[in-house]
């Protein structure tokens, strides 16, 4: 695939991510912060988000497996995940977290388990999509091109 095609593919892909609600304006803000002095800023922040989220999802799984669920603890983790997903613009993950917190408040284990599954699913989707997008960007850069805004 030639450079122009790659660039077009990237723009289309990125647009679709916004369109389908995977990313929101906060992600755009991240991209705007990146510059020549910090060319890997977005990738670095997103990697931190992945690390953070995976840790939180593991903690949530453990917390919800307990005989007697500590809802305060579960809520604290979801709250953190909500915060970090909204900070990078991972809108769909954030939305599930909102519903998740409601179930925590109601001390509803079933509801929480359902949300956990949902949030894991949304997280893995956005992770895959962001990784694909970064891969495309890398291909463009390797071909000597620049990333279209």
């Amino acid at each position: 695939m030639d450079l122009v095609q790659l660039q077009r593919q990237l723009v289309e892909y990125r647009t679709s991510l916004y369109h389908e609600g995977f990313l929101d304006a906060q992600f755009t803000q991240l991209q705007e912060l990146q510059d020549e002095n910090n060319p890997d800023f977005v990738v670095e922040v997103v990697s931190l988000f992945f690390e953070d989220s995976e840790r939180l999802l593991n903690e949530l799984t453990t917390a919800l497996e307990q005989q007697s669920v500590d809802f305060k603890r579960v809520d604290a983790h979801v709250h953190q995940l909500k915060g970090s997903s909204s900070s990078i613009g991972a809108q769909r993950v954030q939305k599930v977290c909102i519903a998740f917190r409601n179930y925590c408040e109601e001390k509803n284990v079933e509801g929480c388990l359902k949300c956990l599954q949902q949030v894991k699913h949304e997280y893995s989707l956005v992770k895959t999509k962001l990784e694909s997008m970064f891969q495309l960007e890398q291909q463009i850069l390797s071909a000597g091109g620049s990333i279209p805004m």
Partner: protein
Amino acid sequence: MVSGNSASSSSLSMKSDEDIVNNNNNLRVLVVDDSPMIRKLHDMYLKKFGLKVQVAENGKQAVDLFHFGASFDLILMDKEMPIMDGEEATKELRTMGVTSMIVGVTSLDSPNEKQAFMEAGLDYFFTKPLTTDNISFILQELNKKNNKN
């Protein structure tokens, strides 16, 4: 150094970018947050405005910095952190006589919790994630405050 005009814009891409950076060159900011991702994000936002940024991982680290004689013009304080949370750290700093501007940044949605945090001694409060508009506003207020003294 008074600059009334440059701080009033919320866009980073204006002609007076240089003015903004120059005016903010001697302002020191402490970012207190237990999430490496948020620390990195806020650090970047603030650097773009020409500020000198230091980070702390929790409230106790922040308080310790002041105990050891550090001073900052602005503190961005997260609420939920291990060891010592933002509310406690804010109370502690005010008790110590710290007059720096303290801005609470958190993803709290309960109005009672927000109130309690404000009452601990915050100057302002914003929900996560911070936007460039929020930072413009904070810096405007900070410059006003410094010009009064």
